């Protein structure tokens, strides 16, 4: 553990130079500017802006990337508070009290408690990440190919069946993603699969192109089909600040929210929705002013916003240690790390430890930069909410094309982007969740490789697919998830109605 902290300090030493801080500033600025735009959640922000970092060397790319990530997340909360339009499910709760506060003339305090709460949660969450990731890696290196196969399958089932309103639609999205993941040359035998004999498809479809196509192009086409011609009311805002009373009422919810958010983030399929709801309920119960809830209670912004950010930090643990993305932003991040030449997984800390610590140090810096930048600039961000919609979506398509083209510098990718955009459009029309598709694209090829490796070790005997104790536990869990509707029907005495969470987009 002491070693880890030492490595982290080395990471900082590599990161803190004036030029790098400039990149952090640039990342946070464009991340917030794009994230604050209505309709753009953190995952879409990262996917859109990622190609900007392609020309940079890894350290600078990480720093800018961390800035974009935090900027995108905070931009989303700003939109929820000022416009009551959460860009994604994890900021739904922030919008409940945050928008009420803003309407009561306390927008500045709502934005401030969200910003400082995000900072506190992000800092503690990243520290916990430093402590927990090596532990998970120690555990992960003892796992074999069958265990990994089981973990990947659990990831598939969890994103398809647990999150989201309809399992069948979740599985449909997952299988479409797995199909996209099949495209390209089979790495073991060198044979082409689903490439239609197109040379451009031989290397497979880049995950960034998939993410940008489904998120950005799909969203734009969907909005084009149903453009609302009345724009929501934006609440004017001054410079965010907190009075002494606000500080007194905010700090405990920040810490409790962090405590709830991080563990959920670490769990596969934990997500940010459950801890934000839990934090809201908890603060309402503990508050000395429960009557203020529903009318703009600051605790109801401070707690859930901290939970949201801590959960985002927690998500990085399975991401770095196992290569397992558990939400849409993490799925895009895996693609980002891969493009920087980092293969997430248990060997990552060993092989590329200096890069990992640089990344983590960058997260700390991005988080700090966000606080420094966003408190004074909030009024400016609020103005961005008034961007005329034709320009907003034209800009999204513009940046989507630029990013997708920049990945491989081939116009073919733009046509691919359009096809994926049409798939994204159809998914929105028919209520298919997006996350299972993205996870399928990323993890499908890895799962196939692990499965074939397991069979190679067993000489083709199918029993080789079942590995150590962990794989039995995981297959048991998968069975419970799949049989859950049956089990629930059997225990008819359970009166408690389950809240259904909508999948993160």
């Amino acid at each position: 553990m002491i070693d880890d902290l030492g490595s982290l300090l080395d990471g900082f030493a590599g990161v803190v130079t004036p030029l790098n801080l400039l990149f952090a500033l640039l990342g946070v600025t464009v991340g917030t500017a794009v994230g604050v735009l209505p309709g753009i959640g953190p995952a879409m922000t990262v996917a859109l802006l990622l190609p900007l970092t392609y020309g940079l060397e890894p350290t600078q790319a990480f720093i800018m990337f961390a800035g974009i990530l935090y900027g995108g997340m905070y931009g989303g909360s700003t939109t929820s508070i000022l416009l009551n339009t959460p860009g994604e499910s994890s900021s739904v709760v922030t919008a409940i009290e945050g928008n009420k506060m803003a309407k009561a003339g306390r927008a500045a305090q709502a934005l401030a408690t969200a910003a400082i709460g995000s900072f506190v949660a992000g800092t503690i969450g990243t520290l916990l990440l430093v402590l927990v990731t090596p532990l998970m890696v120690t555990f992960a290196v003892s796992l074999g190919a069958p265990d990994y196969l089981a973990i990947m399958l659990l990831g598939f089932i969890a994103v398809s069946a647990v999150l989201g309103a309809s399992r069948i639609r979740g599985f449909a999205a997952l299988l479409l993603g797995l199909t996209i993941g099949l495209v390209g040359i089979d790495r073991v035998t060198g044979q082409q699969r689903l490439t239609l004999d197109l040379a451009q498809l031989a290397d497979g479809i880049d995950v960034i192109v998939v993410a940008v196509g489904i998120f950005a192009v799909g969203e734009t086409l969907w909005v084009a089909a149903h453009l609302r011609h009345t724009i929501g009311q934006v609440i004017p805002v001054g410079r965010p600040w907190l009075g002494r009373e606000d500080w007194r009422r905010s700090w405990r919810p920040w810490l409790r929210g962090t405590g709830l958010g991080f563990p959920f983030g670490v769990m596969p399929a934990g997500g940010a929705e459950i801890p934000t709801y839990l934090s809201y309920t908890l603060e309402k119960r503990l508050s000395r002013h429960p009557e203020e809830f529903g009318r703009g209670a600051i605790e109801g912004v401070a707690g859930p916003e901290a939970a949201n950010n801590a959960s985002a930090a927690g998500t990085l643990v399975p991401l770095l240690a196992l290569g397992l993305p558990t939400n849409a932003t993490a799925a895009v991040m895996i693609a980002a790390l891969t493009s920087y030449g980092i293969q997430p997984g248990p060997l990552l800390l060993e092989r590329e430890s200096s890069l990992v610590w640089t990344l983590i140090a960058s997260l700390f810096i991005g988080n700090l930069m966000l606080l420094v930048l966003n408190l004074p600039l909030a009024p400016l961000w609020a103005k961005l909410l008034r961007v005329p919609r034709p320009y907003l979506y034209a800009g999204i398509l513009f940046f989507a094309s630029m990013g997708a083209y920049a990945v491989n510098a081939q116009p073919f990718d733009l046509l691919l982007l359009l096809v994926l955009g049409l798939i994204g459009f159809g998914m929105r029309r028919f209520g298919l969740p997006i996350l299972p598709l993205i996870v399928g694209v990323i993890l499908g090829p890895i799962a196939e490789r692990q499965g074939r490796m397991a069979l190679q070790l067993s000489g083709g005997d199918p029993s080789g697919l079942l590995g150590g104790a962990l794989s039995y536990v995981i297959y048991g869990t998968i069975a419970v998830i799949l049989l859950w509707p049956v089990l629930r029907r059997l225990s008819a005495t359970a009166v408690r109605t389950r809240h259904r969470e909508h999948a993160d987009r």
Partner: protein
Amino acid sequence: MSEPVTAPPDRAQYGVCAFLAVVGVLVMIDAARTDPATNSNDPIGPRPVPILIGALLLVVAVAYTIDVARGGRGEPEGGEDVDPGSPIDWRTVALVIAAFALNAVLIEPLGWVISGSLLFWGTAFALGARRHLVSLAVAVTLALATFYGFAIGLGVALPAGILQGIL
């Protein structure tokens, strides 16, 4: 986004089921085309995984059909700028697609600054912007700014096209 109680059945969903089934069949046909070569390093070869995925697609297509027949429906995605109650405006969608495809075709011959400007201007027009000169000014400014800032500044690969040497 409460659904009206007497919503008519959403029959277009059967199209999704058909799409899934067609993809499933295509994946299996493609897999059958591959050489099932196996060896000691790869006991199963490139075939079984696509076959499995194709088969699961067919299973899901059937289950989806049953779900739809029983009245199941996916809720169209909402959003701040989306009015899900309105019918799909195909004209706008087609115009946006046209602007996008135009950019894909023109990006290499004409370069990003021109094709990107056309993309922005065309999309804004499709979505209802009517101050054409303002849109054009925004489009050209964005295209130039991204070209200089990202292509030249950050090394992002964007083509200069016919403006090579002028920019």
